[in-house]
């Protein structure tokens, strides 16, 4: 037998160490899975028009608010797969909105549009009609992005009804760059009104920021982080380390990396009460009209729904009153009413869910927002919130949509 040279011996040892280290990593991965540790998945990618969008085929755990496995389909929709060709006898509804519509915290069947689809199908079965809802919702989208989705993204699925749904916060504050919550990404489109016309509002040069490299490498990295818990741990750990360092640099004050000092969520309750809000309202209305016009061009019905804010549907009347007092407001539905008036004046089919949801919450002492283990009535809709909202929307569509209207059995 030939004697093993020193170099070969070192190489052999390195290989053994590498193998044992891999085994160790495998065991660590198994331990994380056995412990049930989950990390927030990576679901988004850059989009040249929208700033960002859901990454096709991304799947992983959503752990914010509620733990749920979230899957994006091959076309980048938070939904199951849909054929491009509309099947015969099927009425397609395109749902456009923000995180409430994306519904990462619940399953497809529990999402309000999933509930709406079930109710509509059960009611329309006798007419041999079938409804197929396609979800275009993406978390954080404002009206500018939603109007682009309606103009350019939904039509390849040939929908006959477009539903634009969102909270008053997303419809008012996320319409302008000045009031939007985050300045995370310079590619997110915004508009301003110039001479009554919508014009792009580019990111000021001093706010130019890197929006994250969204090339193929990023997609692979995101998919790997979703699949391998250890990588999820590394990603989240490094993120937290950065956050802590940032907080240290800000004298211990926890700050969002790119928070907008002009953003104040409660402003959305006030209507056009200040010049900034007035400007945001004007842009919002123009974007809603642009969306309506896009639907008209494709001979589709256009519906505009305002959803709710947690403070509006708190079953505790004292808390609602306190909240209203803190804003100097008598009517927590002021913004909803203003949107309803606007929709009526522009002949837009419109639904306001908040008052009905409050009636349900009060009657049943139900909490519609928030999940177990977290503060009550905060955050997104829970399963009950989605269910009640889905049923309300289905009822309104059945009552008023020319395509769907059919006599309803007595409730």
């Amino acid at each position, binding site marked *: 037998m030939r004697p093993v040279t020193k170099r070969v011996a070192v190489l*052999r*040892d*390195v290989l053994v160490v590498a193998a044992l280290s891999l085994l*160790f990593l495998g065991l660590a991965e198994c331990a994380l899975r056995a*412990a*049930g*540790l989950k*990390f927030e998945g990576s679901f988004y990618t850059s989009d040249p028009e929208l700033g960002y969008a859901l990454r096709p085929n991304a799947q992983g755990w959503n752990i914010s608010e509620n733990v749920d496995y979230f899957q994006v389909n091959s076309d980048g929709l938070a939904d199951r797969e849909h054929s491009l060709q509309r099947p015969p006898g099927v009425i397609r509804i395109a749902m456009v909105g923000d995180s409430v519509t994306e519904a990462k915290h619940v399953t497809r069947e529990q999402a309000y549009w999933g509930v709406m689809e079930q109710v509509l199908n059960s009611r329309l079965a006798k007419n041999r009609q079938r409804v197929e809802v396609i979800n275009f919702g993406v978390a954080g989208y404002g009206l500018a992005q939603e109007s682009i989705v309606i103009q350019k993204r939904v039509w390849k699925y040939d929908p006959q009804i477009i539903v634009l749904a969102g909270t008053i916060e997303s419809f008012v504050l996320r319409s302008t760059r000045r009031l939007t919550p985050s300045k995370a990404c310079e590619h997110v489109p915004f508009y301003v009104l110039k001479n009554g016309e919508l014009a792009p509002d580019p990111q000021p040069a001093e706010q130019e920021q890197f929006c994250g490299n969204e090339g193929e490498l990023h997609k692979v990295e995101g998919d790997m982080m979703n699949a391998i818990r250890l990588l999820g741990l590394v990603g*989240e*750990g490094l993120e937290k380390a950065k956050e802590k360092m940032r907080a240290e640099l800000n004298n211990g004050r926890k700050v969002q990396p790119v928070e907008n000092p002009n953003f104040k969520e409660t402003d959305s309750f006030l209507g056009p009460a200040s010049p900034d809000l007035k400007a945001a309202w004007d842009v919002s209305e123009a974007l809603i009209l642009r969306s309506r016009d896009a639907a008209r061009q494709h001979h589709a019905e256009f519906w505009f729904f305002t959803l709710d804010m947690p403070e509006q549907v708190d079953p505790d009347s004292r808390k609602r009153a306190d909240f209203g007092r803190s804003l100097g407001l008598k009517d927590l539905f002021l913004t909803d009413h203003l949107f309803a008036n606007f929709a009526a004046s522009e002949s837009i089919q419109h639904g306001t869910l908040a008052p009905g949801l409050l009636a349900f919450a009060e009657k049943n002492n139900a909490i519609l927002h928030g999940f177990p283990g977290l503060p009550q009535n905060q955050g997104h809709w829970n399963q009950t919130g989605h269910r009640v909202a889905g049923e309300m929307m289905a009822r309104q569509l059945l009552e008023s949509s020319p395509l769907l209207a059919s006599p309803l059995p007595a409730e």
Partner: protein
Amino acid sequence: MVFTSIPFLAFLGALALLYRVVPRNWRCLLLVAASYYFYWLIGHWFILLLLGATLVTYFAGKSKSFLLVTVGLLISMLVFFKALPLFKTGWLFPLGVSYYSFKLAGYLIDTYWGEMEPEKRLLPFLAYSSFFPQIVAGPIQRPESFLPQVERAEGVSFYTAVTGVIRILLGFFKKFVIADNLGQIVSFVYAHLSAHPGAPLALAFYGYPLQMYADFSGLTDIAIGAAVLLGIESPENFNAPFAAVSIREYWRRWHITLTQWITDYVFTPLRMSLRSLGQPGMILSLFVNMILIGLWHGFRLHFAVFGAVHAMYLTIEALTQRSRNRWYKRSPLANRITDWMGPVVTFHLVAIGGVFFFADRMATVGRLFSHLFDGWSALSPEFHLIIDQPGHSLLFLAAAYALMECLDFARRRFWGKDVILTMPRWGRWSVYTCTGLAFAFTILLMLISSQKSNPFLYAIF
């Protein structure tokens, strides 16, 4: 600065590096400075109490006439701080006083008995009483074991340091994976005792001793590992306590340094002085000994009852020892069965004692024992919320506990100070790589942990 924080690890790492590079005759000073800095961070002005007690002990040790008076002073100081909450709430408790006062009192008694010479140099003595890895929760190291090491101030080799890091990681595993997860379940059940049927109560009953063991032995592992990084070998505090076949053996394996201290300085002298009383003298010594152990945790009735319960176990064991031995001699089968059943019975006895230890009201004890066998179904949604959380699955916790016992067994059996040196090169490199990876993952887990780790159970005594 708690042991399970990133600042502590950074502090320890920097100190270990500094300890390695400074000249040997500076190392003791470095240890004292670091220990007092650490104590200042956790105890603030109580640092003066530590310094005062140490100086008084050091000078009293040089003159036999002051020795016993100073022991009395140290014990009075301990009693004062333990009893203070009975009279006034809201007072801060000087952290570590239970440990350093025993260390100092032990030194004086040993000197008085002539077991050791009074320490000549002040600096090593200051290091002895304040040594920061041991000040929070022991182990209570004897001066004859500590002082020569700190005076030699040997450097720490890389492979020895790695064994220290591995020991710290083992402590983190015990604390974060087992103790904290079990602790959340146990605390939840005890906090809503009347709302639970039998199954959660049984879970709390069996879970608490396991939680306490994982928590306390984890803390000890971190202390021992940290001491290794600073060139100090510490005594062990645990030796598989739940493998004990009897309560007497259990106390030889649980919190060994405290039991040993009280046995040497309280039980044995008391037993000797009461020898003429025969069995009643032995029973009295046992009760005094065990109630003192109970009260060492705090001047609360439930701690005294905990001690009395264990004294009762030990008394029964001692009184039946002869007849049991005769029986075992006649029936080897019974002897073998006892060997197998002993740990199970002992664990149950310890768990019963644990209920008295945990529950500060006798009504809680009554409620737990009277409803232990109530319906084992219909768990509340709130309880599901707790046990459905990551890391709370019973299967996972059982597997983690088994792994902990295996790791501890391997450590006791095969893991010596120089074990890494005896390995082939690929073995050494693998140990270094995997330790580095495990350390990195631990830091990452500490970073993402949304809630702060619960305080160590024994760091508050």
